[in-house]
């Protein structure tokens, strides 16, 4: 088992390095000169050269990458062109908000999908099953940025029950979970974000539980006179590692994929930050945000894998 864990961690390292190379290369995907954004349009060639030299853009690429990486490792991701604040501070503050949103959405999705998937698996082939399957396909097909707008139209514009944007009253920058005036800001974003995970987790739960229910030990349980609830409990216990793995993956996807939903609800998370950086061509923020989000995703995947190994003895043996 320790061998497996060590190997899995060792496997994540080259991927993390690859991620840093990709994020470093993003600057060079941008059209024109990397320092153009810092300079007035009519800057003379000498000034451009001078700036290129001070920022180190005249040195060979591998050297530039190494310098950039060494700075990134100690948390120096450069300075935002727009706000002049360190990128790392902005990203970390936004990251906390996104983690909160994604975690809430995955938890909500899990509670819905768990029940639906189990029902569909238990009544396999019935109308319930078909309904749940259709619902899960709708969940993954619905454009969540559109769903967000529709929810805003219904609950904010027409009914005026919930606020349309922001994370607290009066453009508040802090969030208090136990305060209703704050909490009501999070309801619509979480419902919007949970649609895709609901679809995915329902699908996995359904297939995992119905696979377990097809096993022979289930017949044994029934033959011994266990009531149906106990049978389902046994099936769920066996299907759980798979379901939790999908949950972890979905959490990772939401962390990176919430850009559209955060933009709609003006939720000050990483997606919102990224969108702002794109609009203002703030490349250091763009690069830093993507780097942090990708690393979070790599670590989430690692944790999911390790967790699955820990709870499912079948993996250890192989």
């Amino acid at each position, binding site marked *: 088992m320790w061998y497996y864990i060590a190997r899995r961690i060792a496997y994540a390292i080259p991927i993390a390095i690859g991620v840093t190379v990709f994020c470093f290369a993003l600057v060079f995907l941008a059209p024109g000169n990397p320092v153009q954004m810092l300079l007035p349009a009519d800057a003379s060639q000498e000034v451009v050269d001078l700036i290129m030299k001070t920022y180190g853009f005249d040195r060979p690429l591998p050297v530039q990458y190494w310098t950039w990486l060494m700075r990134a490792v100690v948390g120096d991701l450069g300075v935002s062109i727009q706000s002049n604040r360190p990128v790392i501070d902005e990203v970390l503050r936004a990251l906390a908000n996104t983690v909160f949103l994604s975690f809430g959405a995955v938890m909500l999705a899990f509670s819905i999908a768990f029940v639906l998937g189990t029902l569909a698996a238990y009544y396999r082939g019935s109308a319930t099953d078909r309904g749940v399957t259709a619902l899960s396909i709708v969940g993954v097909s*619905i*454009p969540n940025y559109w769903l967000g707008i*529709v929810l805003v139209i219904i609950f904010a514009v027409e009914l005026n029950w919930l606020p349309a944007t922001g994370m607290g009253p009066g453009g508040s920058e802090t969030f208090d979970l136990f305060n209703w005036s704050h909490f009501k800001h999070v309801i619509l974003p979480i419902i919007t974000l949970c649609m895709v995970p609901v679809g995915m987790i329902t699908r996995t739960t359904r297939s995992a539980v119905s696979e377990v229910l097809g096993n022979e030990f289930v017949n044994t349980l029934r033959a011994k006179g266990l009531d149906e609830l106990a049978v389902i409990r046994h099936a769920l216990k066996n299907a759980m590692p798979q379901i939790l793995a999908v949950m972890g993956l979905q959490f990772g996807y939401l962390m990176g994929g919430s850009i559209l939903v955060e933009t709609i609800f003006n939720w000050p998370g990483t997606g919102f930050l990224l969108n702002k950086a794109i609009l203002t061509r703030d490349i250091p923020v763009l690069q830093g945000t993507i780097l942090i989000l990708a690393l979070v*995703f790599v670590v989430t995947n690692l944790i999911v894998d390790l967790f699955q190994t820990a709870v499912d003895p079948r993996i250890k043996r192989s």
Partner: protein
Amino acid sequence: MTDFTTATRLLTAEEEAPATKVRGYWQNVGYRLRYDYVTLAFAVVIVLIIAMAVFAPWIAPKDPYKTSMAFRLRPVGFRDFYLGTDELGRDILSRLIHGGRMSLLMGVVPVVFATLIGGFLGVLAGFIGGKLNMAIMRTMDVFYAFPSILLAVAISGAMGGGMANGMVALTLVFIPPLCRISETATTQVRGLDFVEAARASGGSTASIIATHILGNVLGPIFIYASGLVSVSILIASGLSFLGLGVEPPHPDWGLMLSTLRQSIYVNPIVCALPGVMIFVTSLAFNMVSDGLRQAMDVRL
């Protein structure tokens, strides 16, 4: 005597035509699809959407670019603006019909290119194996470390938006999963006896791939790619929504949704319409892909 005649009759019957028709694989697939009414219905929806996009100039009642300061943000059913007008007074219905062109193009083209490139790389990695496999698949793993929307936003955001850049970004996003699918399928087929036999009888690598491998891996690749179209349409419209895809004033569902969003307090129903188109298209592709997967009996 009776036994004898029965036997003769059976024999002659068998000579003329087999008693039970043995259906080929594709006949089976067609048979299953013919009775899958849900998939057929959604296939019709796709055909209609494509026809609408192709024949847009002939179907659309008005010019999708014609603005009108007098009739801005009119509701559904205002005069002959059947679905209302947008913030510049353009006819929503005509723009929705024309918008299908951009949205479908941006959704489908990247999947086609990614299938060709990713499929090629995957078959190569799977068949040749060894160091080449390591090099290709480990590179793909790096791109797996990004959620697909984030990767698309990162690439097109850095390149500066625009429809062409958006399509390049989407292609890059879909190459890794397609590469992985075709690599897995190829590795499974490569170890089978008939490939060994082909090699023993002197088949070259290229001819073995063309005649023996491709026939067995195209199914899974095709099914997976058809499922990606739905995702691609969602992300493509999402990029346009963020201002990274189709540029104004061109009609595109994602872009329309983004500009109309400013007017939800004025004209809520009209603002939600472009999203309905995205949703229906994405749902139809998803359902058909699902039906095809079941009919072709492919496990991914």
